[in-house]
């Protein structure tokens, strides 16, 4: 937990530094319209740098048993990755095929691979849900969902 705290604090510190630099480039002084564009972000970034520095120092000094607990529960990482990675995969597929086909593949893969559901249930759910959403959003509410890079796929439906 302590290491994760320090790592996160350092990332925030760097982020704050970059934003500080960017705001200075925008000019932080007094212009024709009062405070210039960089004024507000500059002070926010300054606050971010200060606070994340405090967090890092606090984490270094923290020797309590709670801080020594691992960041991720034992056996917790695999299930998290099993959810997160396919979800990222779905977004990538959306870019190529459109949201509905991507969601069908994602649902089917997840149900079969992780849920160990029977093929019949897997296919039924992974087809029914995107089809139902298609009628609700694209047809009923007229909110078209992304169709992807290869439009010939979305032209099929």
């Amino acid at each position, binding site marked *: *937990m302590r290491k*994760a705290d320090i790592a*996160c604090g350092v990332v*925030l510190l760097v982020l*704050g530094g970059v*934003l500080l630099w*960017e*705001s200075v480039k*925008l000019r932080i002084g*007094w*212009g024709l*319209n*009062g*405070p210039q*564009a960089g*004024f*507000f*972000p500059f002070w*926010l*970034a300054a*606050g*971010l740098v200060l*606070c*994340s520095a*405090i*967090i890092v120092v*606090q984490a270094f000094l923290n020797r309590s048993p709670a801080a020594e607990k691992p*960041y991720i*529960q034992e*056996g*917790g990482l695999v*299930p*998290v990755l099993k*959810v*997160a990675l*396919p*979800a*990222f995969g*779905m*977004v990538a597929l*959306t*870019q190529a095929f459109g*949201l509905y086909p991507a*969601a069908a593949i*994602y*649902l089917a893969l*997840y*149900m079969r691979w992780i*849920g*160990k*559901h029977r093929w019949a249930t897997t296919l039924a759910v992974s087809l029914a*849900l*995107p089809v139902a*959403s298609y009628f609700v*959003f694209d047809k009923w*509410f*007229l*909110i078209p*969902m*992304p169709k992807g890079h290869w439009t010939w796929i979305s032209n099929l439906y």
Partner: protein
Amino acid sequence: MEAFGNLMMGFQIALTPYNLLIATAGIFLGTIIGVLPGLGGANGVAILLPITFAMPPTSAIILLSCIYWGALFGGAITSILFNIPGEPWSVATTFDGHPMAKQGRGGEALTAAFTSSFFGAAFAIVLVTFFAPLIAEFSLKFGPPEFLGIQMLTFSAFVGLGGGSVPKTLVSIFIGFLMATVGMDIISGQLRLNFGTIELMRGFNFVVAVIGLFGIGEILLTVEEGLSLKGIQAKVTWRTITSTLKELTQYWRTFIRSAVIGSWMGIKPGGATPASFMSYGFAKRLSKTPEKFGKGAIEGVVAPETAAHAAGVSALLPMITLGIPGSPTAAVMLGGLLIWGLQPGPMLFKEKPEFVWGLIASMYTGNVIGVLIVLLFVPFFAAILRIPFAILFPSIVFVCAIGAYAVNNSTLDIWYMMIFGVMGYVFKKLDYPIAPMVLALVLGDLAETALRQSLIMSQGSPKIFFASPISATLVVASILLVIWPSISRYLGRTAQH
């Protein structure tokens, strides 16, 4: 009596068949959202925000606020039957609600929870009805320095009363504000912090952030904890309802006390969770049988539920009167107002009375409909959690993706949603509070405008924040709130020696 006439006008709007249908649909959807892990009031409202774009604003706000009430009711179902608090403010409900369900008194616990929610909400709505016009009238005198003062007070309440680490809360606020500054500068029109990319020119949309931080982040957390859903069956029959209602009458003191605590705490941001714990604590301390608490005392369900629901309602009070939301869900609704082309704040009462009073009247109708629906459909809502998680989780991710995309019709937003999800997961684990970040992101532009306008008015002198008594009070109060934790710790230490 002007308020009464306005309220009647509001009822004429809220009671049209279309708006009643919208309210019922909203409550139904909201309860489902409240029951599902990973979906709660804030991101439920965020996901459904795009479908309201084509509606008249009054119906749209009725739909969103009813989803909010539904989510509050849904949280009680999961806490009692599954021992899973769907929302942080239902944690206290699990203390006694779940033991009651284990003893076969699930129906009783649910009836008590719904009745308390209804009472808490009704109490707070009456307060909103009478105080909202007064506060709006008062705040008409506010200029930019006063609005900045209110904003400062809002965020310092998170720092001072949030109970978490002060630097982490501040980091969360700063990041929220910084994300709001990305893109076009509202005053000079200059592009900011986009690192030369077109992608960042639009800035970050708060709806996408809410869906990612609360939805995806929450799912990742749930998965890590290896959620096992072992629910207890409960049926609510007319007999349980009538007998429970009879039993509840003897706890009228708890009802009123909790409703007052809830309404008061709810006005401040992030107030619902401390309100539910406070009211539970008070109920236990003042009870004749404190030893029964934690083992299935019906009062232990009444107290937190009444307070949480009262707080949920009163969180809307600063939103409609001042344009400052009291909770993440209210923040999303405020964002909705901006999208529908309404300017939240005191002028809303003057310019769009039918909107404001339609919303207030719909709080009455929505909660009546809500309590009826949840009582009738408890088994249905409980059955949702029995869906295998391998179907539930990917479906929720899919629905979140739809919501994130629909805000701006941009696939990039789905990527942002996932990144926000990972960020929400990391931040939650490291105890960075997320609610202030969302509020800062929503309020960022308003806060920056208020700050810069004030400084323009005073030609750059910060003394303007102390020039009027109202803004001086607000600024001093917010500074006190921020340093209060350290003062109280110091006093506590000296008292020990």
